[in-house]
């Protein structure tokens, strides 16, 4: 009888763990788009903007004071095109940065790699004198996410220490996986969504 009880309990727990909900199955299911804006800005009184033709990477070189690196044109050009297309659709006119634009758009890219150290020496609390484990076969223990961060700045609205006021921004975030085409499709779709969820930018 006791064995029957144990078997029944084991069977139920086993079945439950086998059918635990799995969550996302595809890379694009983890894509996110975030926007935020300054409600005191009257976007309808602005008409022109300027944007660089490259996307700067926020990486260790930059953080350590070195020269900036830039996103490969194969990725950057379609993303910048999509930003310009959306700005145009909303009634904005692109001008050179020397033509006194009403707004500046500052696009940057940030890559974050998260690494798991499951096998590291963190298990001493449970099993003293044990220094983790090693894998005799290759395993994936990290994932990378990429964020395209675009900030709209008002060059005519400076703080006392001459910093421009950020009035709108968006972040498109997702896993850095898949082919170039898939990646560009996912990120350009994200850019479209950033404008869709920012109706206050429409000035036409």
């Amino acid at each position, binding site marked *: *009888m006791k064995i029957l009880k144990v078997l029944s309990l084991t069977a139920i727990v086993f079945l439950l763990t086998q059918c635990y909900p799995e969550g996302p199955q595809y890379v694009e299911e983890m894509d996110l788009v*975030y926007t935020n804006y300054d409600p005191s800005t009257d976007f309808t009184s602005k008409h022109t903007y300027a944007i660089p033709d490259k996307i700067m990477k926020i990486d260790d070189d930059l953080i350590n004071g070195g020269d900036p690196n830039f996103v490969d044109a194969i990725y950057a050009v379609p993303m910048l095109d999509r930003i310009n297309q959306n700005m145009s659709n909303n009634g904005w006119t692109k001008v050179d940065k020397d033509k006194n634009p009403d707004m500046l758009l500052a696009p940057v890219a940030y890559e974050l790699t998260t690494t798991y150290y499951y096998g590291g020496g963190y298990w001493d609390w449970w099993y003293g004198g044990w220094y983790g484990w090693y894998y005799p076969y290759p395993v994936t223990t990290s994932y990378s996410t990429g964020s395209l961060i675009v900030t709209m700045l008002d060059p005519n609205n400076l703080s006392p220490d001459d910093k421009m006021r950020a009035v709108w921004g968006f972040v498109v975030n997702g896993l850095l996986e898949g082919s170039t085409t898939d990646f560009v499709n996912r990120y350009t779709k994200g850019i479209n969504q950033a404008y869709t969820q920012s109706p206050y930018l429409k000035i036409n």
Partner: protein
Amino acid sequence: MKKILIITLMLAAGVFITPVVSAQSFTSIQYTMGIPTGGLKNHVDKISWRGFTFEWQKEVAPSVSVGVNFAWSTFYERKDYASYTRDNATLSGIQYRYDNLFPMLVNAHYTIGTGTVVPYVGLGIGTMYDLRNTDMGTWTIEENNWHFLMSPEAGFIFDVAPDVSLKLNAKYDYAFKIKEADAFGNLNISFGVVFNSW
């Protein structure tokens, strides 16, 4: 405070059970499904098909038994791509929502009549641990709360062998409102086996 509550409930169960040493005891293991209500339904609207219940009871008087009841139910819902706005910020993406409920009860049952099929009613009090996750992208928002819990139940016991019965019951777990979270309910429908021993 939460630990004290649990320990107190365990002791209460022990106090009830100890004086009756020769009575029959019942161990049940059941598959459980759950229907969310209240604050739980706001988070996950879908029925849970993943759950189990473990119960141990001892007869303390004719038709009356007391004991402990533990269960685990997992609620899950995938929300289609949508935008969520708070103040000036908007976040768009697919949300994966999970709720793991762990009700822990001290309870009493009263069986009505005798026969091959015996109806019963019961009431339990205890605590509910609620682990709630909202996943978006590579992030998760995790909340975990302990609620005071009250659980009325009713069901039928079907005798199938001298030491084995089947049990079908409905139990409504009502988790009271706390400062950090709203009240919520979970209507459990469970089916399983009861092992009787002396």
